[in-house]
């Protein structure tokens, strides 16, 4: 197993995932036992909180709803402060198969990459998203190639494993909403290495995608702008807090 990365953390962002959260945790305990996990309950309005407390899950409850970016970032801060060597995001809706995590960690160690993305589009197996969404993802791939010169086949994949140095970067600064393509540009711009490995994703068990059809135009424009700005941003400046 991975000698360099003994402590591994799974970050599970959960907003109203009462239907899936138990299944997700059970799946992780069975298929990725060498990983610790932390659920970030993003102020869910359903029974997510009760389920987590009853089952004694390792969970952080956010006092206000921060959205996917703020929730996942909380996980990265937790991971970084608790000295984890790598962290991986697994969505609470059951799309991501924990069986791939060990393989991702192996691959990460062997290639000394800073980020490993589980891509649906290398082997083209499993849930491939709808046609129109695939066009959007392809567009982001091209945009990232223009901005950074590198090819990322699945820039919107939420299944991403990061090293301690990227964890630190994300703990300090992480996009608020639709973080995936934007943070890929930031990571590449900081001179870090990203590799992809083929994974099979499942269709979501329940709940809805955060990107509905009428939000998609806003999504495309917002993420495009965010990526362009990430390309020219001054990364030495931290979020202005004090």
């Amino acid at each position, binding site marked *: 197993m991975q000698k360099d990365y003994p402590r591994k953390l799974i970050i599970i962002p959960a907003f109203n995932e009462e239907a899936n959260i138990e299944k997700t945790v059970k799946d992780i305990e069975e298929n990725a036992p060498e990983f610790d996990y932390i659920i970030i309950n993003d102020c869910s309005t359903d029974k997510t909180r009760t389920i987590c407390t009853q089952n004694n899950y390792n969970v952080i409850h956010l006092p*206000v709803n921060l959205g996917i970016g703020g929730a996942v970032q*909380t996980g990265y801060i937790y991971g970084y402060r608790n000295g984890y060597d790598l962290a991986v995001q697994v969505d609470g809706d059951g799309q991501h198969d924990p069986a791939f995590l060990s393989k991702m960690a192996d691959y990460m160690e062997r290639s000394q990459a800073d980020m490993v993305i589980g891509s649906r589009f290398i082997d083209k197996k499993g849930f491939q998203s709808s046609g129109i969404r695939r066009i959007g993802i392809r567009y982001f791939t091209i945009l990232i190639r223009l901005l950074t010169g590198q090819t990322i086949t699945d820039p919107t994949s939420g299944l991403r494993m990061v090293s301690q140095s990227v964890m630190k970067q994300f703990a300090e600064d992480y996009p608020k909403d639709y973080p995936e393509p934007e943070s890929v540009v930031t990571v590449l711009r900081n001179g870090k290495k990203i590799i992809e490995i083929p994974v099979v994703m499942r269709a979501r068990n329940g709940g809805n995608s955060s990107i509905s059809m009428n939000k998609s135009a806003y999504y495309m424009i917002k993420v495009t702008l965010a990526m362009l700005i990430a390309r020219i941003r001054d990364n030495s400046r931290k979020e202005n807090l004090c």
Partner: protein
Amino acid sequence: MLTLKLQIIVAITIISALCIIINMIRRKSLELRYALSWLTAGIGILILDLFPDLIKTIADIMGIDTPANMLFFLGFCFSLGLTFVLTIAISRMSVRMKKIAQELALYQKELESLKSENTKKET
């Protein structure tokens, strides 16, 4: 152009608005920082109201034929500037709010694990 009657009405309105704002600052329901632009705007309008010739002079300097147009233009610029400043304030607040929420949640988590560790030790 400004009748005396209108001048008085405007002056009374502005002065009472200023009084309300100052009273709100006094009662701390409004931050002086954010009220400052409203106070300066109020005082500016009051000055223009008391010395209407100023309006014409400024319009002449800016090369605007109709003084009323200049008033609309300046008012528009002021609102635009104010909204922009508020947008900056919101951005800053939301970053801070996010950070506070995250820290609170993380400390709560730490506290709970310390508590359960303690009960384990006791039993």
